[in-house]
């Protein structure tokens, strides 16, 4: 009886131990519970990756059911192992998505900054273009001015050439009836007295006027600043006072006529020298004829020309 009781108690104890051993969950299941706990405690995984977290939850339930039904079997451990890995997987995917989103936001911000840079560069470019355009137009207007200057220069040259030609022509006309010489005192135009005046007179002959027109034309072409002196000269026949007066009157007549032909009055003076400046022998008729003359001296202006 007693022995039987001991055996019965021992049997119960063994049975209890066996039951106890069967109720202890395997390490894999504990790890799976922890892994799922951690994944679901972090609210971000549930928010960002609910589908994988849900799959982990379902797998954990499968493992729990396997343990409840069959205890610590290889299948229970396999299912628990998968549940643990699914929980980890859900977490990793969630973290990766968060990181990717942050990267996307960073890249978007950078692109916005890049756009700003591009806009700034474009604005700078536009300013440069405007500056260039205004430089171009300034250059263009300079070109226009330059071209106009060239044309003006050419016109001026043409005018000058024509004026020189006319002056040369006037001088050539003059040389037909007067001698033109360059002397230290200036250009000297010598007109024979018999061409201009009747004997002992100081009134200009009609043909003398025509000749003096040529002289006036030539003088007008000369430097407008030059001074002109009309000198009257006689031969030595007759008294000196008479000849002095006659030469003075004749010089005055020529001077007045030139002024009437357009030579500025303040440029032209007249002076009589009588016989004092003979250029030829007064003993011969030919020499006396040469001494009877009017000399028009064009004195160069101080600035020269």
């Amino acid at each position, binding site marked *: 009886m007693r022995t039987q009781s001991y055996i019965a108690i021992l049997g119960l104890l063994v049975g209890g131990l066996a039951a106890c051993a069967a109720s202890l969950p395997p390490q894999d299941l504990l790890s799976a519970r922890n892994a799922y706990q951690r994944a679901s405690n972090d609210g971000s995984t549930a928010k960002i990756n609910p589908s994988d977290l849900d799959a982990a939850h379902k797998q954990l339930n499968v493992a729990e059911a396997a343990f409840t039904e069959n205890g610590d079997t*290889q*299948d229970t451990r*396999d299912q628990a*192992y*998968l549940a643990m*890995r*699914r929980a*980890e*997987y859900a977490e*990793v*995917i969630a*973290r*990766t998505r968060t*990181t*990717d989103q*942050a*990267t996307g936001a*960073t*890249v978007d*911000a*950078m692109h916005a*900054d*890049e756009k*700003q*840079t591009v806009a*700034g*560069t474009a604005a*700078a470019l536009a300013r440069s273009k405007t500056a260039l355009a205004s430089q171009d137009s300034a250059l263009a207007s300079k070109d226009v001015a330059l071209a106009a200057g060239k044309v003006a220069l050419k016109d001026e040259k043409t005018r000058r050439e024509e004026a020189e030609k006319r002056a040369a022509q006037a001088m050539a006309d003059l040389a037909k009836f007067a001698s033109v010489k360059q002397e230290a005192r200036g250009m000297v135009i010598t007109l024979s007295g018999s061409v201009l005046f009747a004997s002992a007179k100081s009134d200009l002959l009609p043909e003398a006027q025509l000749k003096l027109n040529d002289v006036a034309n030539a003088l007008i072409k000369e430097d407008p600043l030059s001074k002109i002196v009309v000198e009257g000269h006689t031969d030595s026949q007759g008294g000196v006072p008479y000849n002095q007066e006659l030469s003075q009157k004749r010089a005055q007549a020529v001077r007045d006529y030139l002024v009437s032909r357009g030579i500025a009055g303040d440029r032209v003076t007249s002076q009589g020298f009588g016989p004092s400046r003979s250029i030829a022998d007064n003993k011969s008729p030919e020499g006396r004829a040469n001494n009877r003359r009017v000399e028009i001296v064009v004195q160069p202006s101080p600035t020269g020309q």
Partner: protein
Amino acid sequence: MHNSIRLLLITAPLIGACAGSFPPPTQRLADAQSAERSAREVGANDAPAAQLPLKLAQDQIGQAQKAMANGENERADSLLIRAKMDGELALAQAREKTARVDHLEAAADSAEQKTTNAIQGAVK
């Protein structure tokens, strides 16, 4: 009547034999190997967090192949399910590392861009 009883007697053991044998898990092997390869391709070998699950996937594929050779197809099947899961986790870990590197690079680029803008702003 006799014929049908005889047919039943002959086929019953065959059906039982079919239900008891587990076919070789060739598809599961291919899936696990594919997951392991994909993980390596995205750089699981160079991502510290991915190295353990990658090694576990490789070990379990090896164990499963031995089990299949020994005719333990059911055990091989379970090992391959675990190996595939480990391969997928290794891939996810490697992908996470890439994402972190990308983010650091983007942050550096963005900082550089901000400096550029600041300089341009100062020039204006």
